[in-house]
Each structure stands twice: as structure tokens, then as C-alpha cells.
């Protein structure tokens, strides 16, 4: 538990109750209920447009639900006044990395430490170096994003998110923009985080990662959770016809 500026404590769990979201006439999420427990690794799978990224963006505070209740670490994100409390307490890793191109790896990681957590430059660099070491990027501190491979950029992005000591980590297709041979270096970092007990919600197309690392796999289809369970249940023995269809297509490719 960490405390927010106004003294509320932030946990590591997520509760979604009857969450809906539409973009214009398109209903992206229809009445979603989902719980993520402290230390749990939940992997969201499903076709493009099934709503999994939107769900993740709602949990991380980048979008707001149209209706329903969203508690992230105990913060009621559906209350506009309180939603900003979550900022800086959850980590978000994006498909396109979104590193700050004008800052080197060290600068990317220290920015929030210095400006949000008000650390001195020395303190911030010590914390950042630890985070960069955790993702195996301690030797590339001086490199700018454009001088790093996609996999390296994504590892710096993970370090940047980790450095502020988040309660929950969200991964939005973190390996989808990577060349196939670079996927492994990122998933292995994600796996080690999971082993260390980090609460994680992961949107991915990497079924290998889901199989080996997820505590629970959630299959989304057309804005609803069609099926969920352990990786064995959902990936090996899917019950829902849409899950069967989706997995058949994924494994075919």
C-alpha cells in the first residue's frame, strides 16, 4: 500500500462492475465485470476491436467509463474528481513504447522521479539505475530512444513505469510492434515481474506468454467477456465457440 497526496492508500487490486463504453454509436464495452486480485497476472486476449485495449485504458485512467464502477487500487475511477489520484501509482506500457524522444534512457526514467516524487537528481538516478538494471538496460543509460532497438526501447519504457514503484502494471500489446526476434527480451522481463509478485493486466497476442505466465486468461469478444479461467481451461480446453474460433485462427498462423 502506498499513500496518495491526500492520504488515501492505494492497493494492488482492480474491480470493474457493469462497465460500459461507447465511441459514438459503437459500443466497445458492454457491461463488463472483472476483478483482479493483489499479485494476480491477468491476460486479456481477443480479436482486434473486441474492447481489450479500451478496458485497459479505462483501468489506467486514460479513458473514463460511460457507466459502471471502476475501482483501481481502491480509487473510484468513475468519480471524475478522484480518478486523477491513480496517476503515478499504476504503470502503463504502450504498444508504441512512447518514450520521450528528447531524453536519453536515464532522462526518461528520472523525469517522473524528479518532477513528481521530487527526488534530487542523485537520488533519482540511483533509483532509475536500479530500474534499468532490472530490465537489463543499465549499459544504455546515455542512449536516446532513436539509438535503441524496439525491444530495448520497450525495456526502457518498462523501467520508466517501474521506477515510480507502481501498485499495478498494465501492458497494452507491449510486444506487438516488435520484430519477432525481439519479442523474447520483453516477455522475459514481463515474466520476471510476474514472478516477483507484481499485479499485472496484460493485453497480448503472445499465447506463449499467456500460457506460461498468466494466472488467469480472459477472452473478450465484441465488448463482453466471453470466457475466463486458467490458461489450461481457456487456451487448451475452450468452451465458448468464439474462443475456439479465435484460438484456432491464432494457432493456425
Amino acid at each position, binding site marked *: 500500500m502506498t499513500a496518495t497526496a491526500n492520504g488515501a492508500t492505494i492497493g494492488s487490486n482492480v474491480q470493474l462492475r457493469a462497465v460500459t463504453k461507447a465511441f459514438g454509436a459503437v459500443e466497445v464495452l458492454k457491461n463488463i465485470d472483472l476483478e483482479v486480485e493483489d499479485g494476480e497476472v491477468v491476460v486479456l486476449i481477443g480479436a482486434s476491436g473486441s474492447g481489450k485495449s479500451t478496458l485497459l485504458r479505462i483501468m*489506467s485512467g486514460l479513458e473514463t467509463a460511460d457507466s459502471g464502477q471502476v475501482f483501481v487500487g481502491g480509487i473510484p475511477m468513475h468519480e471524475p474528481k478522484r480518478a486523477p489520484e491513480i*496517476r503515478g501509482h499504476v504503470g*502503463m506500457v504502450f504498444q508504441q513504447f512512447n518514450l*520521450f524522444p*528528447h531524453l536519453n534512457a536515464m532522462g526518461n526514467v528520472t*523525469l517522473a522521479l524528479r518532477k*513528481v516524487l521530487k527526488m534530487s537528481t542523485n537520488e533519482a538516478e540511483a533509483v532509475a539505475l536500479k530500474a534499468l538494471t532490472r530490465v537489463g538496460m543499465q549499459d544504455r543509460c546515455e542512449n536516446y530512444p532513436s539509438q535503441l532497438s524496439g525491444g530495448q526501447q520497450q525495456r526502457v519504457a518498462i523501467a520508466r513505469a517501474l521506477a515510480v514503484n507502481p501498485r499495478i502494471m498494465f501492458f497494452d500489446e507491449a510486444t506487438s510492434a516488435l520484430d519477432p526476434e525481439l519479442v523474447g527480451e520483453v516477455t522475459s522481463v514481463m515474466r520476471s515481474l510476474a514472478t516477483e509478485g507484481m499485479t499485472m493486466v496484460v493485453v497480448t497476442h503472445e499465447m506463449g506468454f499467456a500460457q506460461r505466465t498468466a494466472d488467469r486468461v480472459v477472452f473478450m469478444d465484441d465488448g463482453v467477456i466471453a470466457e475466463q479461467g486458467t490458461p489450461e481451461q481457456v487456451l487448451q480446453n475452450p468452451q465458448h465457440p468464439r474462443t475456439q474460433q479465435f484460438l484456432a485462427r491464432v494457432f493456425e498462423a
Partner: protein
Amino acid sequence: MNWQLIWISLPQLLRAFLLTLELAVVSIIGCTVIGLLVGGLRTVRLRIVAGLARAYVEVFRGSPLPITLLFVYFGAALYLGYSSNVFAAAAVGLSVYHGAYVAEIFRSGIQAVPSAQREAAQTLGLSAMQTFRFVVLPQTRRIVFPPLIGQFISLIKDTSIAFVIGLVELMKAGQAIVDRTAEPIPIYLTIAALYFVICYPLSLWVRRNERKIVPA
């Protein structure tokens, strides 16, 4: 044509030139501050604020500089009395006028930064102001720098229009000499050369640096 007149008038012209430079420097600072503020406000979500910023830009881009200068000067004279300072009026007029153009330069630079950069900053806990200052603004440098210097060059030349409110800057000083001597060519050539001496290096400097403003 009396070319010797150039040497005779030079001390007088240089004194006026110094005033022109002072006016340019003060106005460049002024229009950059105004432009940054108005350009930033044009990109905020609050429609009223963005609308007011847009109105500012349209009003000053839509009226000629001499009119702006006259309004500022006589407006100030009306409210502050005729002791009001011509130099200050010229600096304010040039700043608000060029501030409108500078605002558009900053706005386009700000909007060229992908919104994903703001999202990344937001999830890290940076406030809107911190995000603007430490994430968005530094990334606008490469986009903003060349047109901004171009605008500064126009401003330097536009200081000559301050003669309409009676400021004895380079242009006005030259005209006075021409009126006295009836030798327009040598004097106006000298004046043109003095403006050129300031503006051309700036333009060269942009060309040298526009590729290496942002690392990597």
C-alpha cells in the same frame, strides 16, 4: 549624389540603429512570451479559453501593424496621459502584433507532438503543466525554431513602422536626414544595409542549426 553624406550621417544613424535594436530585443522577448502563452492556450480543452486565444490571434493577424501601433499609443495616451512613453508603446504594439503570429507557430508545434506522449506523461503522474513543460515543449523545438526565427526577422524589419507614432528609430532618423539633404539614395541604402546586417546572420544561423536542435 553625395556619398560622403553616409559618413557624415553615420553617427546619427547608428544612434537610431541602437534604439531599433533595443526595440527589437524587447519586442522579441515580449512576442515570444505572448506567443507561448496564447499558443499554449489555443490547445487546451476548455473551449472558452481556446476560443479567446483564437480571437486574439485573428484580431491581430487581421489588422495592419500601423493600426495596432496607433491604437496602443493613443490608447495609452488616453488612459495614462500624454507623458506615455513612445518606446514602450512601440514595444507593446510590436509584441502583441507579432505575438499573434508566434502563437500560431507554437500551436502548430504543440499539436505536432503525438498525444501518446501526453498519455505516457499522465500515467507517470506528471501534471498537465509539467507535461507541457518537460515533455511537449522540448519536442516542439525542432518544429518551431525555423519559423520562429523567421518571425523575429520580420519583427526586426517591422520596428521601422514605429515611425508612425513618432519614435525616432533608424527609419525615422534616416527620413529626417533625407528631408534635410534631399539625398534619398545614399541614406536609404545605408539604412537597408544596417537592417540586412542584423537579419542575414539570423537567417544563416537558422540554416546552420535547424538540423541539430534536437539530439539524435
